[in-house]
């Protein structure tokens, strides 16, 4: 109880810093996820009908997701120097697989009869993509986006180790001052707010998912 109280005191006392770090963390996440979504959906559309390219794209994306975060972050430092940039590049690579995979699965699952009838009515391949295939795959794509977002929020907390910002600064700050007053509170703030940010973004995205998916597709 005492811990919770002092934690809350710390949050109130550092309100501006917490807000700023949260916003920075959110900004990193949102930028990364938007770029990853555009890239992965486009890539998914390109490779979906080609089994070999599809398998290779997915295999490569899963290789990225397997490489430990700190290592992948570090690999970009020689290229772009320390800061948010190497972190965002690595996070971008991480965020690809869930979206790419769900895009491909979503497009795979569109019933051939639906595509056949669209073609039979004279829809061009672009019309079939925009009006039929993507809208049908959309709920699953959005699920992928949500997973990528949670992943990105969590991993972005170590951006601080390569000189980036975000809520990791509170964790790092606590670590360097460990034993001194408020150090543990600082770590808790960084951790809890990261989770809260993830949940908040997930709630927002689930709303977006609901609003942008056709009522006809709900189970």
């Amino acid at each position, binding site marked *: 109880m005492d811990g919770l109280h002092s934690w809350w005191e710390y949050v109130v006392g550092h309100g501006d810093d917490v807000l700023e770090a949260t916003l920075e963390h959110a900004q990193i996440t949102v930028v990364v996820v938007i770029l990853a979504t555009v890239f992965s959906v486009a890539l998914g559309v390109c490779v979906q009908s080609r089994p070999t390219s599809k398998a290779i794209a*997915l295999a490569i994306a899963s290789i990225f997701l397997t490489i430990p975060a700190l290592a992948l972050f570090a690999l970009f430092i020689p290229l772009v120097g320390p800061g948010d940039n190497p972190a965002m590049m690595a996070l971008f690579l991480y965020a690809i697989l869930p979206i790419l995979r769900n895009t491909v699965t979503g497009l795979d699952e569109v019933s051939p009869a639906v595509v056949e009838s669209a073609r039979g009515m004279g829809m061009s391949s672009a019309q079939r993509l925009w009006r039929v295939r993507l809208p049908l795959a959309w709920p699953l794509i959005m699920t992928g986006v949500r997973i990528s977002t949670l992943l990105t929020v969590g991993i972005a907390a170590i951006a601080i180790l390569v000189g980036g910002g975000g809520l990791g600064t509170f964790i790092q700050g606590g670590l360097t001052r460990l034993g001194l007053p408020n150090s543990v509170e600082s770590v808790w703030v960084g951790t809890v707010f990261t989770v809260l940010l993830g949940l908040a973004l997930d709630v927002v995205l689930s709303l977006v998912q609901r609003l942008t998916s056709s009522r006809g597709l709900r189970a």
Partner: protein
Amino acid sequence: MSEAVTPLTARWRHGRKHSVSTVAMPTGAQLWHRYSLVLAPAFIAGLGLVLWYYYNSLGVGTIAQIQVSSALDWETKLKPQLIQHLTIAAWSTLLVILVAVPLGVLLTRGGPRRIAPAVLAVANSGQALPAYGLLIIFLAAMGQGGRTVVVALVVYAILPVLRNTMVGLDGVDRSMLEAGRGMGMTRMQTLLRIELPLAVPVIVAGIRTAMVLNIGMATLAFLIGGGGLGITISSGLKLNQDAVLLVGAITVALVALTFDWFGALAERFLHPRGL
């Protein structure tokens, strides 16, 4: 790690019911899995070769590169770090299995079954939990050392195994259980002879995910005095030596990819025949 994508996917598709097939082997993904089995070792071999040549070109052991040399010395640095790294990952993965699988079994039976959806929801949103923060929290509570790292890793990696155990068991066709019970099997017998064998692919996928997470998180063990290959990456950052950074990062990547590939092989060969 990739299997982390499926449970939500399955949830979206079936509302509340999970099915084994969608979790274990999603539509159109068979080919991908086969490619992963072949592509991954090729990639690992290529990356290993690059690392080998790069490492040798650095002239480790010569006076000219004293900083780099001391940070990258095999006998005194890289080898013990590698051993520490793998030890941490192995212990935490083993403990995760010992805790999460029985817990998953328990949560899909009788009374506790009712809280299963809540547990799954937490497991899914737990993906936003920052490993870094968790590690430091345990450091503050338990002090420095490898033991702290292992405990933190177990807590962090328990979720995917727990989730996949529950989803895997839940996905077993009810009619098979009926049939088993109808032949006079006890509940324990249906669990051991029908449910668990059928859920194995999904559970193994979860264990693979946990193992990859553990290897990744062991990279951060250095922060709380647990050692591991993270030390080399961190030295590279501190010394501002790209060579040290790269060797550290690539080595960690190689370790993760190699063990992930072992996991992929295990997934493939632990499949019950006929599925």
